[in-house]
């Protein structure tokens, strides 16, 4: 194993990278797919068992169990469905993979960031500070950022409370204590959600022009993910570097923003009357997407804090010229010119 790693020929390095990547992919796929095997198995065996029955009425009841609808005098949501099976599946997804894997994912993110900090420490501004600054974010941009940021944090805390509070907070707060908190959380979460979406839309409008991918971005990734992993490297970057563009803007604000917002609206009943089956799916998507987003934002926050001088851009709107040159050289040139 050790010898294997010591082999530093480019071919061997490439091969090792491939192996690591492939196993990583397989691993990921297994995480997602393996639990499904159980459903497949139980589904098949149930079908086999059903076929063994000869009672003609059994077919009738099987149809009922599969959610056939009928008539009922009671008005309301899906009251004409005798049995819905989706609920069990949703329960197993939510209490199974979603509830089991996402904490690990978040833990992994935090752990990774922690490790990164241990290994890399703060990313200092190289050289001495001249005291000259350039304007990085105007007032409007900063207001938007903090508006979205604060709502994001509130929604994260309240959302995670609802997902994990039963396991984590009830032992701490007790049943009624947690219930009060959860009641407050759901109220806050549901009411602030739409405001958050407004913020996301504003943020997209504010920054979309600086997030159009360019050839520079590809280069940025190639050079050790913008030098985060490799010390001392500072690849070219525009106003936003490729990492910010891809993770924070495109994946975060655009993709996850849309997913989380739309599913959120569905969950609070703003997009028509949905069937339970839809709501179950939407609930899982909302949770998974949100957690992925939270992971990304953790990284975003980490980099904002761990990169010396970055935070000032969002607090005072000004960054030192040295910082700008170091992290966003192309933008700096542009800014100087303009």
């Amino acid at each position, binding site marked *: 194993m050790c010898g294997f790693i010591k082999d530093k020929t480019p071919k061997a390095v490439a091969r090792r990278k491939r192996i690591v990547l492939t196993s990583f992919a397989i691993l990921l796929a297994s995480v997602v797919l393996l639990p499904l095997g159980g459903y497949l198995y139980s589904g098949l065996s149930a079908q086999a068992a059903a076929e063994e029955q000869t009672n003609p009425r059994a077919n009738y009841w099987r149809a009922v169990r599969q959610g056939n609808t009928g008539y009922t005098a009671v008005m309301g949501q899906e009251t004409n469905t005798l049995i819905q099976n989706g609920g069990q599946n949703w329960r197993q997804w939510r*209490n199974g993979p979603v509830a089991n894997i996402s904490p690990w994912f978040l833990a992994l993110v935090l*752990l990774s960031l922690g490790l990164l900090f241990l290994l890399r420490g703060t990313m200092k501004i190289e050289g001495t500070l001249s005291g000259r600054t350039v304007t990085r974010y105007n007032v409007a941009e900063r207001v938007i950022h903090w508006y979205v940021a604060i709502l994001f944090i509130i929604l994260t805390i309240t959302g995670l409370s609802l997902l994990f509070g039963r396991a984590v907070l009830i032992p701490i707060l007790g049943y009624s204590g947690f219930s009060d908190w959860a009641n407050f959380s759901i109220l806050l979460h549901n009411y602030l959600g739409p405001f958050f979406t407004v913020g996301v839309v504003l943020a997209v409008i504010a920054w979309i022009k600086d997030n159009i991918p360019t050839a520079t971005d590809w280069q940025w990734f190639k050079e050790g993910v913008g030098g985060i992993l490799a010390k001392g490297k500072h690849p070219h970057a525009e106003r936003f570097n490729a990492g910010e563009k891809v993770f924070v803007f495109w994946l975060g604000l655009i993709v996850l923003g849309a997913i989380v917002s739309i599913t959120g609206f569905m969950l609070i009943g703003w997009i028509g009357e949905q069937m339970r089956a839809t709501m179950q799916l939407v609930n899982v998507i909302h949770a998974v997407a949100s957690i992925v987003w939270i992971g990304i934002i953790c990284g975003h926050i980490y980099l904002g804090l761990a990169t010396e001088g970055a935070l000032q851009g969002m607090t005072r709107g000004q960054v030192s010229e040295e910082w700008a040159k170091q992290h966003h050289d192309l933008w700096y040139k542009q800014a100087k010119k303009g």
Partner: protein
Amino acid sequence: MYARAIITLAAAVMLTACYESTDVTVHKPGVYKGARDPLLAKQRAPEQQQTLRERFALVQPDR
């Protein structure tokens, strides 16, 4: 070097996430967790159980 270590670690951590309890019963039937309900104690009394059985006979009479 560190990158490799991190990836290996991450893989190991994620592997543990693959663990899933085969029984997803999160709630434990019969184990009371909420506020106090005096009915629970009452229901344990054999006389109460007998009363309910007699009541059932009344509802479903063979008379």
